[in-house]
């Protein structure tokens, strides 16, 4: 739209509100804003009169009232005398736990499946194709339900682990798979146990520092030193030394069968395991497709050019193909993580008490405060989604190919 600085001689007329490009967009926006305000006002007035008719109001005090219900999977301290707010917090932590576990395992599974899908081995690539197509085309709710039902029907009961002629036995006396869940050892930290973790953290930093040194050495002097085995050494040796030097300060509390149940150790309920596995396998199929598309998106000319320069396949993959493929793979990968977090809300289908089960389930039913509960529930997921999207935008901007 052209605009010239007038010499101030034109008069203002009402039709200019629509026809003059300087005012036009303001006019439309004002109309839209008025329309929005009217619509919102209409909805809110309906809401208030309906609430008044039902004798309800909007209040947030229920968060401080006693919850009165138990939560089966409790990663943090909780009992049924604590507040609804505390119960919601427990649920939130449960959501984050299962989302994190599923994200990590889905990524590993997806990357492996995606790379294998591209392999020359006909059997392997077809098998991966079947995996991807089978899991992508069936709703995730069905997978969650099936895995849960299979596990509860197939895995043995705890009492079958009893006695000398037990029908089932634990793995290395440490892990027990039962139809009530999986029992794993719990880490017990004694006096200076934290030092071992600190040593491990420092080792990770040490590995990066070593690799930078090796690369600087290559650029400055042309000497190529081996990095793979020394990196593994740096990662493991210091941690092991510190562990033994401090007298093995980290112990394992193994689950043991006492009576009809296992006591001690960490109890991962079947609902958590089923939800985790289902989300990981389902999303892994989508990630596999993203990885495959990313690698195939890099034009073959790149590989050819690198080969013509004399580079070997390993270096071509790590220096040329993977960096470019990551640019294509990471954004949809991050939106799959978002999907995992949102799909974790299906936990109530199998009785896992995530935030949808506590805040949106039992708390909502008990207190009747539907609007407040659902609002806070949506807010929780929104905050996570927006944070993940913000991270993705930062990544995209950092990785953008510089163009003219």
């Amino acid at each position, binding site marked *: *739209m*052209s*605009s*010239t*600085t*007038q010499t101030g001689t*034109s008069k203002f007329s009402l039709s*200019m509100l*629509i*026809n*003059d*490009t*300087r005012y*036009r967009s303001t006019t439309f926006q004002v109309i839209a804003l008025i329309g929005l305000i009217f619509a919102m006002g209409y909805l809110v007035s309906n809401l208030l009169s309906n609430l008044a008719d039902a004798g309800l109001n909007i209040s947030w005090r229920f968060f401080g009232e006693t919850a009165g219900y138990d939560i089966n999977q409790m990663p943090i301290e909780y009992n049924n005398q604590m507040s609804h707010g505390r119960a919601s917090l427990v649920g939130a932590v449960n959501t984050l736990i299962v989302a994190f576990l599923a994200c990590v395992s889905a990524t590993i599974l997806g990357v492996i499946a995606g790379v294998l899908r591209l392999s020359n081995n006909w059997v392997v690539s077809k098998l991966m194709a079947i995996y991807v197509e089978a899991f992508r085309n069936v709703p995730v709710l069905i997978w969650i339900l099936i895995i849960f039902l299979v596990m509860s029907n197939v895995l043995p009961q705890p009492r079958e682990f009893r006695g000398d002629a037990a029908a089932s036995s634990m793995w290395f006396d440490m892990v027990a798979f039962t139809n009530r869940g999986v029992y794993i050892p719990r880490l017990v930290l004694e006096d200076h146990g934290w030092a071992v973790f600190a040593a491990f953290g420092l080792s990770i930093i040490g590995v990066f520092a070593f690799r930078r040194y090796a690369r600087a050495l290559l650029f400055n002097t042309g000497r190529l030193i081996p990095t793979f085995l020394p990196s593994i050494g740096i990662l493991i040796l210091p941690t092991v030394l510190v562990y033994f030097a401090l007298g093995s300060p980290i112990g394992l509390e193994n689950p043991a069968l006492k009576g009809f149940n296992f006591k001690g150790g960490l109890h991962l309920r079947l609902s958590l395991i089923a939800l985790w596995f289902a989300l990981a396998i389902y999303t892994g199929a989508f990630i596999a497709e993203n990885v495959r598309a990313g690698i195939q998106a890099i034009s073959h000319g790149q590989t050819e050019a690198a080969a013509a320069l004399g580079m070997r396949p390993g270096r071509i993959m790590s220096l040329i193909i993977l960096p470019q493929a990551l640019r294509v793979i990471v954004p949809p990968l991050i939106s799959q993580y978002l999907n995992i977090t949102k799909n974790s809300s299906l936990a109530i289908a199998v009785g896992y008490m995530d935030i949808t089960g506590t805040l949106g389930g039992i708390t909502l039913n008990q207190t009747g405060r539907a609007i407040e509960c659902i609002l806070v529930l949506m807010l929780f997921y929104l905050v996570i989604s927006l944070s993940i999207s913000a991270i993705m935008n930062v990544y995209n901007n950092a990785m953008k190919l510089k163009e003219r």
Partner: protein
Amino acid sequence: MSEAQMKVSDEIAISIENMNKWYGTFHVLRDINLDVQRGERIVICGPSGSGKSTLIRCINALEEHQKGSITVDGTLLSSDVKNIDKVRSEVGMCFQHFNLFPHLTILENCTLAPIWVRKTPKKEAEETAMHFLEKVKIPEQADKYPGQLSGGQQQRVAIARSLCMKPRIMLFDEPTSALDPEMIKEVLDTMIELAEDGMTMLCVTHEMGFARQVANRVIFMDAGQIVEQNEPEEFFNNPQSDRTKLFLSQILGH
């Protein structure tokens, strides 16, 4: 120097006064003063980035200018949408990448604007379209889609599409730059025919042979300003400014 010169009248078709344009802080067009008479054919040349495409896009308000005035056919280009619409229906434009509408047939491409902007009945619009398609010598392609035509054919259709609005001024933004060499001639021939019919034309192009044959005036632009303008013979044989001489040596030398 042909009798085409005779067709230039005294009436001013386009009047640009002190026009300036900025992209943000970048001063892309500086103090442009240009009067185009009806029937005149002007070729604008210059290095890339000199603002020549931006200049002609300001004339049909595809780009807006911040200072100065542009008057087309007596209508001042202001922020009034009605003025802009009026100017656009009188000025036709041909783009470097043709910009035909790929989902419509050739005939539909040509009848679209007359039907929807001038409210011409469909039958009449189709007759006009066929007339101009014959003029650009591809009437048999009327029912094909743009994707099925060659580059040169597409550009000729683009010219016919603009002509269907019966414009009084035609703007050309590097019409042959995206064409394979063997197709440039057919498009230039079409443009020459248009010129001989008396159309007022502003053409941004590198085709200096065309300029010599058809133009009344050649304008050289550099860094957003009009550096030199003259009749073609004088311009090519006797460039005055050093920048003009440098430019001509680069494009005519090899």
